[in-house]
């Protein structure tokens, strides 16, 4: 009798579970706004990618595919004609057509709080050819055009015209696989499936995203089965998660490089003390010495618990521009000391290493490890780890000689780090905004600028690789440390594949 009751109860439970399949996701951070143009940061982009579509979409390996644009031609180097998908409706029933595309691009470019202006700065104009065709004109031939389009969510002109920023920030109306039903900042983001989605209906009827910013809380949530997936599993909890027989564990090589920048510009750098009063970082031998003198394997093993990929260049393997021939030389403190002596610093020198302490995974600990590594070759490093608000402000004002920072090549193309960090700083053109060591090599600049106009991928790759080689292998402009790795855990009941761009796209989860 008891068995029958238990059996019936189980069946009833399974039936009710089958009626409304809900996916619960525990995230390291929540969305900052429901306006897809307000904040260009991974957490918000990841959540909103479920509500909005873009003209071009990234698959999980960051390769481009048709999204709301079904096909395109490139009749002249600066002209792109895109054919839009017909029969697509926004969540409120409004029709998707060229007017929405024009509206969206104008807003991204001109809205004063838009965080995506950089993605569309190369686009000169966008015109309507007919209801389902648009023409983009870029200022110069723009090989990364399609990649940049993967970031521009398409908004509904009819719904948003005339509404103020606040309304738009609370009412997302997209064409995506899920629509927002409720948003309580910091508590939950609830979505229902879009039954009229053009790719087909998603497997889950409901999704609940829960920001669980505290690491221990997030891990507890998946261990107690309150959520089905969590991202950013802290490295110290990996073993605990692996031991559970109800959970799957994923490691995904990410796009973020953690590296060190050095002041290569000033003769008197504020935070360096040497016996001869000069700036040792201007000498490539000193920079090379630092590179050889950091035991990165130890950092990966002890600080990152094995969850990082040692880096030898600026672009990880998934990014276009990566050069498989560049390998990281082995840790060699003797060679480092020899190089230092050759450069005139046999007894080393004193320097301060600045680092954020709440921005990247184990950032302050990595800085400490770098300091202890360099101490062994005679460079006395003082670590100054500060919250990101202070760190970015001070380094922005160049009140630093040596600092740890990260860069995610989220477009999947080397141009972002080359333009933003390697090119000589130029306030008008916007090059080198994060080149805070003020590294400058006009040959590298020329290669970077040349690559920006080459449309043929094979030829462009060669130029990108040449620029990178010159900067990192010859000049050692930066000290690459490692690429961050994304760690996820999910319940065995669902089929989940991780993405290179760190997003959680529920539509692909089964």
């Amino acid at each position: 009798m008891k068995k029958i009751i238990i059996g019936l109860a189980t069946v009833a439970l399974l039936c009710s579970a089958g009626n409304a399949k809900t996916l619960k996701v525990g995230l390291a951070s929540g969305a900052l706004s429901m306006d897809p143009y307000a904040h260009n940061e991974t957490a918000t982009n990841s959540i909103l990618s479920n509500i909005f579509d873009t003209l071009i979409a990234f698959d999980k390996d960051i390769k481009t595919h048709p999204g709301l644009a079904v096909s395109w031609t490139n009749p002249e180097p600066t002209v792109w004609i895109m054919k839009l998908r017909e029969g697509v409706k926004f969540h409120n029933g409004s029709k998707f057509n060229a007017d929405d595309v024009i509206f969206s691009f104008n807003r991204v470019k001109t809205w004063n709080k838009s965080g995506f202006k950089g993605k569309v700065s190369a686009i000169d104009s966008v015109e309507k050819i007919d209801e389902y065709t648009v023409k983009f004109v870029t200022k110069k031939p723009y090989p990364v055009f399609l990649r940049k389009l993967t970031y521009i969510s398409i908004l509904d002109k009819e719904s948003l015209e005339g509404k103020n920023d606040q309304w738009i920030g609370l009412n997302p109306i997209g064409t995506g696989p899920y629509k927002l039903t409720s948003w309580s900042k910091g508590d939950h983001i609830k979505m229902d499936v879009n039954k009229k989605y053009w790719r087909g209906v998603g497997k889950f009827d409901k999704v609940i995203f829960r920001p669980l910013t505290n690491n221990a809380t997030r891990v507890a949530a998946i261990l107690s089965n309150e959520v089905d997936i969590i991202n950013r599993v802290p490295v110290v909890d990996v073993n605990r998660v692996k031991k559970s027989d109800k959970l799957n564990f994923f490691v995904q090589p990410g796009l973020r490089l953690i590296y060190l920048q050095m002041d290569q510009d000033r003769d008197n750098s504020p935070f360096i003390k040497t016996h001869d009063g000069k700036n040792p970082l201007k000498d490539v031998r000193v920079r090379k010495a630092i590179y050889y003198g950091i035991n990165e394997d130890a950092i990966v093993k002890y600080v990152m618990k094995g969850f990082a990929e040692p880096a030898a260049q600026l672009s990880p393997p998934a990014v276009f521009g990566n050069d498989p021939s560049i390998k990281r030389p082995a840790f060699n403190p003797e060679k480092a000391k020899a190089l230092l002596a050759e450069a005139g610093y046999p007894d080393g020198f004193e320097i301060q290493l600045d680092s954020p302490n709440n921005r990247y995974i184990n950032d302050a600990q990595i800085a400490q490890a770098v300091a202890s590594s360099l101490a062994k070759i005679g460079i006395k490093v003082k670590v100054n780890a500060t919250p990101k608000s202070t760190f970015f402000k001070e380094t922005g004002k160049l009140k630093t000689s040596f600092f740890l920072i990260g860069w995610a090549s989220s477009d999947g193309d080397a141009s972002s780090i080359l333009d933003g960090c390697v090119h000589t700083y130029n306030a008008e053109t916007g090059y080198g905004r994060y080149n805070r060591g003020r590294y400058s090599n006009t040959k590298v600049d020329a290669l970077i600028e040349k690559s920006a106009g080459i449309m043929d991928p094979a030829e462009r790759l060669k130029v990108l690789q040449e620029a990178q080689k010159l900067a990192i292998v010859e000049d050692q402009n930066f000290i690459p440390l490692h690429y961050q790795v994304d760690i996820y855990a999910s319940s065995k009941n669902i089929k989940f594949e991780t993405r290179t761009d760190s997003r959680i796209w529920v539509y692909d989860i089964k």
Partner: protein
Amino acid sequence: MTKYILNRLFHSALVMLTISFIVFFIMFKAGDPVELMLPPDATQQDVIDMRAALGLDKSFIVQYQKFLINVSKGNLGNSFIYGQPALDIVFERMPATMELAVIAMIISILVGIPLGIISSIKPNSIMSRVIMFFSLAGISVPVFWTGMILVLIFSVILGVLPSSGRGEVYLFTSAFTWDGIKHLIMPVATLSIFQLALILRLTRTGMMEVLMQDYIKLATAKGVPRKVIVYYHALKNTLIPLITIIGIQFGQLVAFTIVTETIFAWPGTGKLIIDSIQNLDRPIVVAYLLVISFIFVAINFAVDVLYTLVDPRVRV
């Protein structure tokens, strides 16, 4: 009495104004969030534009003036990060924090005072010693640790309570639904343990001191029943300093919710303020601190008025 109240109101307003100035100044010096908000591929011009859009390119005096004018209209500005009115965001999250703080305070009072009384009557009994031992633990153990241990035992190992989140909310509070109560148990326990221990010890010390007074000896000699002496005369006199402490401690409770909210992913203002400080979201920090100061000022005012009712020696 009226003169006293008006006096107090004037002083309270002065306090709020000073606080607003100090907070505004500190956040102004901390820097602007534009660098943090814009992605790496934004140009210097974008930074300048965004700064202008948020009004952050003006001098301190101009910005503060604009702030004061807006405050007089009831507008505390829009959050830099969320883009929504700062006061709305603070009020949206306030019920969650207040709920935790109020329920934790009620429990600490309802449990702490009786236990304090019990341990004060016969201070050397076994019961007393056990209570004092646990109260010492309650004061010493960090809130953070208590929270984690509770989550570990009840959520991960036993699986009977949810590890985080707020649960179903009805009429602004989750205390009216069973699901809400399940979510409330651990955060409230974590938050109230320190308060409970504190109130317990204060009650005990206060009671022991009062019970040694001459008028108690007189009452005993006159034959007044022990129960009346303890629960009426002695307790009333112990309550006076206790009320002051509870008023001040309520402020501490609200402050400690920061830690509790982080552990239990409780969507309250504690977590909001920490994040806003880190993100340099000045409007929210200012709005929150002004609201909290207002609550403090109001509570202290109420406590002072309560005094006059409880202690006949105090006259305003």
